[in-house]
C-alpha cells in the first residue's frame, strides 16, 4: 500500500493545487467586493449573487442555456443516424469512426476559424452568392446566435457520435430480429427497441455536449460578435477588462452549479466515468 500511496501523491497534490485550491479561492472571492484597481477587498457581501438575477445578466444566462440546448439537440438529431451508419458498416467500422474522430483531433480553434472564413461578409458563401448574382449585398451570416450554434454543432458532433456509437455497437442484433419477427417495421423497431436501449448513450452524449456548450468561450467570441455574449464571455470579461473579480467568481460558480446539477440529475447507478 505504500507504493500505491506514493503513486497517488503527486497527482493528489497537483489536483489540490490546480483544481481544489483555485475553486476554494473563487468561492471566497465571490463573497467579497471588487477592489479599486482590480482584485478583491474585505467587505463580504452576497451582492454578486443577487446581481445574477438582474435582467441584463439573466438574459445572458438564459441565452446561453437556450443556445446550448439547441446545439445539443441538433448534435443528437444529426449524430444519431451517423452513429447508426458506422455501427452497421461492418468491417469498415474503424475507418468510418476514424473519419469522425480525425477532425476532432485537430485544433478546435482552427475549426472555429474555418466557419469565420466561410460565413463572413467577404467569405466563401457570400462571394459565391454575389458572383452568381443571387444577392447584391453580403448576407450577415456571421456574428449572430445561428453562427454560434453552427460552430458548436460542428465542434461537438464527434462528442455526441462516440458514446452513441459505443451503445449502438453493443446492441444485440438478435433483439432487432426478434422485433421484426413480432411484426415491427423498421421505424417501429427504431422507436420502440433501439432508442430506449440507447438511452444511456444518449444521456452520456447529451451531457458531454451540453456542459461544454454552456460554458463555451471561443465559439461565441469568434462567431457570435458583441451581440451574442454568453456566460463564458461574461466571465472572461470580468477577469480582464471589467476587473470585477467577485462578480466573475459568482458567475463561474453559478455556471458550475448548473453543470454539476445536470450531471447529478442524469446519473444512474453503475454508470461511472472514473
Amino acid at each position: 500500500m505504500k507504493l500505491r500511496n506514493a503513486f497517488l501523491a503527486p497527482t493528489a497534490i497537483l489536483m489540490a493545487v490546480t483544481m481544489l485550491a483555485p475553486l476554494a479561492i473563487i468561492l471566497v472571492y465571490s463573497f467579497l467586493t471588487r477592489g479599486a484597481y482590480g482584485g478583491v477587498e474585505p467587505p463580504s457581501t452576497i451582492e454578486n449573487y443577487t446581481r445574477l438575477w438582474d435582467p441584463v445578466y439573466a438574459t445572458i444566462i438564459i441565452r446561453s442555456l437556450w443556445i446550448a440546448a439547441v446545439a445539443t439537440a441538433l448534435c443528437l438529431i444529426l449524430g444519431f443516424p451517423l452513429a447508426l451508419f458506422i455501427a452497421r458498416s461492418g468491417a469498415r467500422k474503424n475507418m468510418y469512426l476514424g473519419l469522425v474522430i480525425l477532425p476532432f483531433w485537430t485544433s478546435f480553434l482552427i475549426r472555429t476559424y474555418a466557419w469565420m472564413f466561410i460565413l463572413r461578409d467577404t467569405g466563401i458563401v457570400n462571394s459565391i452568392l454575389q458572383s452568381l448574382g443571387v444577392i447584391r449585398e453580403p448576407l450577415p451570416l456571421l456574428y449572430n446566435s445561428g453562427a454560434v450554434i453552427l460552430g458548436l454543432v460542428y465542434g461537438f458532433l464527434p462528442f455526441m457520435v462516440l458514446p452513441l456509437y459505443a451503445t449502438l455497437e453493443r446492441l444485440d442484433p438478435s433483439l432487432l430480429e426478434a422485433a421484426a419477427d413480432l411484426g415491427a417495421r423498421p421505424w417501429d423497431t427504431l422507436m420502440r427497441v433501439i432508442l430506449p436501449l440507447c438511452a444511456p448513450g444518449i444521456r452520456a452524449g447529451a451531457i458531454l455536449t451540453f456542459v461544454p456548450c454552456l460554458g463555451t468561450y471561443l465559439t461565441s467570441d469568434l462567431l457570435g460578435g458583441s451581440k451574442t455574449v454568453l456566460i463564458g464571455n461574461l466571465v472572461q470579461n470580468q477577469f480582464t477588462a471589467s476587473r470585477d473579480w467577485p462578480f466573475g467568481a459568482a458567475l463561474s460558480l453559478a455556471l458550475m452549479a448548473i453543470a454539476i446539477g445536470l450531471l447529478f440529475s442524469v446519473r444512474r447507478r453503475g454508470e461511472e466515468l472514473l
Partner: protein
Amino acid sequence: MKTRRGLALYALGAYAFLHVPLLILAVFSFNSSRFAVWQGFSLQWYRAVADDSNLIESSVNSLIIATAATVTATVLGTLAAYGLWKRGSSWLSGSLYLSLVTPEIVTGVSILALFQWIFRFLHLRLGMHTVILAHVGFSLAYVVVVVLARLRNFDRSLEEAALDLGATEFETFWRVTLPYLGPAIAAAAMLAFTVSIDDYVITSLVAGVDSQTLPMVIYAMARRGVNPALNAVSTLIVFSLGVLVLLSERLRRA
C-alpha cells in the same frame, strides 16, 4: 434496402459537413488573392508564415509547453491510475471528475486567481511555468481516464503470479503491468499533447506577456480580420496533427 442507401447518403452528407470546412481553408491557403475568390495558385501565404517571427516563436513555445506538460501528465497520470485501480480514493476520483466537467473558462479564471493570490507572497510572475502547471492540471484527468479504462481489463492474477515468483510490488508494476499498459499510455500521451497544444482559453489567462502560444497568436489573427496567412497556418497545423494521429495509430497497431 432503402434505409441502408438512405443512411449511407446521409453519412456522406455528414462527413462532408465535418471535413469540407477544413478543406476549404486548405484550398484557399494556396490562393494568390486575399479574397475568397479563386485567382490562381500561389505559395505566398506560406512564405509569409515562414517569415513571421511571432508565429515561429509562439509555435516553439507551444511545443515546449505541450511536451513538458504531456510528459509530466502522462507519467503522473499513469501512476495515479494504477494507484486508483489498486484501491479507489473517492476524493481523488471526485477531483479528477470535477476537472473534466468544469468549463474551461472557470478552470482558467480560478487558476489565475490562485496564481495572483500566491504572487502576493512569492515574487513570481505569470509565464511559461504557470502555463505548464495549468496544462498538467487539466491534462491529468484525461490520462487517468484512458489508462484506468485499460486497467479495468487487466487480469489481476498476473500481478499475483509476479509477486508469487519473487517480484516486489514495484517490480511487478514495472515488469508486468506497465508493458500491458503501453498502448493506453501512448494514447493518453497523444490526447494530452493535442489538448495542450490547442488550448486557448486557459492559456490566454495565465500566460503573461512574454509567453505567447500559437493558439493565442492565431486567435489574435482571427479577430483582426481577413488574413490569408491564417489559412496557411491552419492548413499546416491540421496537416501535421493529422499525420501525427495517423502515425500513432499505425504504431499502436504494430
